[in-house]
């Protein structure tokens, strides 16, 4: 029993000291930013020697977890609403919020040649299902609804709409062919500045409100050096270029 106790104490001490020595930042990242963030984190670790622990998921779930004490230092949301709310809740540092990326909406089909470069396929309506992200939850979904409303197509599209609970699932519906086409994030179908498969219409930004993705420093991380360094790193021109290559604007 005594031995167990000793081991436990030693272990805890070891844990505490290891945390103190290497600055480690835990980041909650919106699912749509997975690919660029992995690359950015790797570069950041190489440059600074800090350690980055990434969690990917739906922003709403992260919000709920952060409200209930999740140990994240930094939150990269898929919208600007949740970071604002976290500041109001007193769980994020006031004044630390900034837009790390603007999302680009794209009408995409897994079939080559199916979506024309002006998106006129929408008006013709020769399809059974069109996938969007849940507009209540995902800014990309809200932007898609806004676009359809502006084009006067919402009523015609409503019976054909299927909703993914987030933009990743929406992409999955379209890529498996279960929906012929859908509104997804350009970042999902773009690699190195090119749409890699299927056919796409990049929706002009003027047709919907901006899809602003904000980051915020959480109260848990306000004294974390690595968290602050990573925030500044995200604002550098080098990282901005990386972010743009994945189909975001900034």
């Amino acid at each position, binding site marked *: 029993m005594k031995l167990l106790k000793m081991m436990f104490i030693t272990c805890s001490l070891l844990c505490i000291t290891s945390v103190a020595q290497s600055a480690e930042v835990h980041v909650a990242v919106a699912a749509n930013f997975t690919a660029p963030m992995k690359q950015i984190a790797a570069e950041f670790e190489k440059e600074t020697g800090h350690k980055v622990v990434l969690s990917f998921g739906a922003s709403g779930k992260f919000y709920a977890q952060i409200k209930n004490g999740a140990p994240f230092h930094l939150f990269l949301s898929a919208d600007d609403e*949740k970071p604002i709310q976290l500041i109001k809740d007193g769980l994020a540092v006031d004044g630390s919020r900034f837009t790390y990326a603007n999302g680009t909406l794209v009408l995409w089909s897994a079939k080559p040649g199916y979506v024309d470069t002006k998106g006129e396929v929408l008006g013709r309506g020769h399809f059974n299902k069109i996938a969007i992200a849940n507009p209540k*939850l995902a800014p990309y979904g809200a932007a898609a609804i806004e676009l359809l409303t502006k084009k006067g197509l919402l009523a015609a599209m409503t019976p054909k709409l299927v909703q993914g609970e987030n933009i990743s699932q929406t992409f*999955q519906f379209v890529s*498996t062919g279960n*929906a012929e086409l859908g509104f997804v994030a350009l970042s999902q179908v773009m690699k190195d500045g090119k749409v890699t498969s299927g056919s796409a219409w990049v929706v002009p930004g003027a047709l919907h409100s901006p899809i602003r993705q904000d980051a915020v420093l959480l109260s848990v991380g306000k004294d974390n050096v690595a968290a602050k360094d990573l925030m500044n790193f995200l604002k550098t021109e080098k990282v901005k270029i990386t972010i743009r290559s994945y189909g975001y604007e900034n």
Partner: protein
Amino acid sequence: MFLDSSDLQAIFLTVKLAAIVTAILLVVGTPIAWWLARSRSRWKGPIGAIVALPLVLPPSVLGFYLLLAMGPHGPVGHLTSALGIGALPFTFWGLVLASVFYSLPFMVQPLQNAFEAIGDRPLEVAATLRASPLDTFFTVALPMALPGYLTASILTFAHTVGEFGVVLMIGGNIPGITRVVSVQIYDHVEAMEYSQAHRLAAVMLVFSFLVLLTLYAWRPNTRKG
């Protein structure tokens, strides 16, 4: 109002789904359970394992394969479009089919146990009295397995109500067609509508408790009898 109309719609849809799935599984599960209980075939092990798979597989795996299989490029998708039904994902009947797979062990395993508990003797006695196998099943085995049927039906119904991952993967979240209660709660939480989430979640909690209470409170009596 305690629950709004979209919540009520989700509840109605969930009950309808669970009732249809239970009815289908009563018909489909009975011969499978009977065979598993009585057969001495070397296929008994593999078939039993396949039936039990949904117990251990994460819903994401099941949902992912169902999405591919029922999609336009999958085997089920080819079949349904050849039959003129069209693709099943994002439809109510797609959910029914998925739930039948997902809840299969909850029907088959209690029935199999019930059938096994009957033993050979009553069936042999019936046979000596010149009852046909089918007659024996309906007049001897079925009445004796009735408690098993009740357990299996309650578990299947409740498990289908509690389904989430598979529905999320193949449902497409369409109000009145595929937006069941568990998905509706998820939406409320994601949208930070915690008070609405609480209300619906409380309904689910009470319902699930009552179902299990019925099951456990009723079981010992049948043992005595």
